[in-house]
């Protein structure tokens, strides 16, 4: 019994052709042009490419770090030990509330944050969200100099269930904890509104703030 015809390009050959940008193999291209099934297969791959989570734009400053976002959805692989935060304390998420999961990459090892292990300078943090009823999510970190706008928005976009947010944060070597505010909302928030809901730690039907406080190792608190 055989499922393949040796005279036709194999699936593997088509996959390599697709990954190489559909170029470099004239014989295969000629076959695809004449074969409806192989065209349908490559069309399916193109459609799957559009479904893939977009990768983040270039960072504001160069970072030679591992790409958490590209690999981001791998958080699901750690689901068995997933720690969801929705109160700022350790909390195993329940249905009906938005939640945030933090994944830490430290010294080459990635793990779901356990809610207490201190960060080290240079550790990278990725976030994944459970959106519940909210369609948008914004992430803010303390702004330098504070003033009347103490929070700097580092991300805002659609909230996609269980998908990683398209950026990473890197712990610095300054004293104090790292703090991240994750704001779920039903629509995009103006900056003034964002500042207000974070200040009030609002939790309502329209906005929901989750504060992550991550301690840092070897730094005077």
């Amino acid at each position, binding site marked *: 019994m055989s499922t393949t015809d040796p005279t036709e390009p194999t699936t593997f050959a088509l996959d390599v052709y697709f990954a190489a940008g559909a170029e470099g193999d004239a014989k295969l291209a000629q076959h695809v042009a004449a074969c409806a099934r192989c065209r349908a297969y490559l069309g399916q791959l193109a459609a799957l490419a559009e479904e893939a989570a977009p990768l983040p734009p270039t960072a504001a400053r160069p970072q030679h770090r591992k790409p958490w976002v590209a690999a981001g959805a791998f958080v699901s692989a750690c689901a068995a030990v997933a720690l969801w935060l929705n109160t700022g304390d350790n909390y195993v998420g329940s249905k009906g509330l938005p939640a945030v999961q933090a994944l830490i990459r430290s010294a080459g090892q990635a793990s779901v944050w356990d809610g207490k292990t201190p960060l080290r300078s240079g550790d990278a943090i990725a976030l994944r969200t459970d959106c519940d009823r909210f369609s948008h999510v914004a992430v803010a970190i303390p702004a330098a100099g504070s003033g009347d706008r103490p929070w700097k928005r580092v991300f805002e976009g659609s909230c996609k269930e269980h998908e990683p947010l398209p950026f*990473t944060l890197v712990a610095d070597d300054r004293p104090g904890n790292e703090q991240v505010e994750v704001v779920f909302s039903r629509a995009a928030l103006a900056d003034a509104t964002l500042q207000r809901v974070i200040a009030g730690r609002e939790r309502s039907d329209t906005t929901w703030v989750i504060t992550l406080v991550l301690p840092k190792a070897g730094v005077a608190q």
Partner: protein
Amino acid sequence: MAPAAASPAFSLAYQRFVPPIRAKCQRLLGHSGEAEEIVQETFLRLWQADIPLPPAAEPRAVMAWLYRTCTHLAIDHLRSHWRRTRAPDDVLETLPCSIKLDAWLNTKQILHALAVRMPADELHAVVLCRVDGLGQVEAAELLDTSERTVRRLLAAFDQRAENLRRESSS
């Protein structure tokens, strides 16, 4: 704290290699959450392995690595999560012409019945050649074995399938 970004090489690799690997997982497991978990785990391992990526590496070499890893994960899944209900065969309309549909469906049916009883190397060969539609030379290359060994593994599977058919009809 500051935002960081993906490396350009990994970003490009992710865009180009995820669709074929997702399609491969769906051939075995249908459009399912399990298939997607295996895709994500495969790319987690790629990220951790830190192997050369295009343009520093040939796409074929990266695809071979992904195929190997993904097949290994899918087989582990098949053997440890055997279910009474078969994974859906919902990718029929997009299988390339090198895969013959009747034989493909038959293989999947037999795999569902026998996967937990089959040796891992035989499962690898069957998934690559009979589900994914690779040639025996390609499968041998991916499995780092000889074409003869692949033929032997496939023959063992065919014998197993024949025995199953006899058991069913008796």
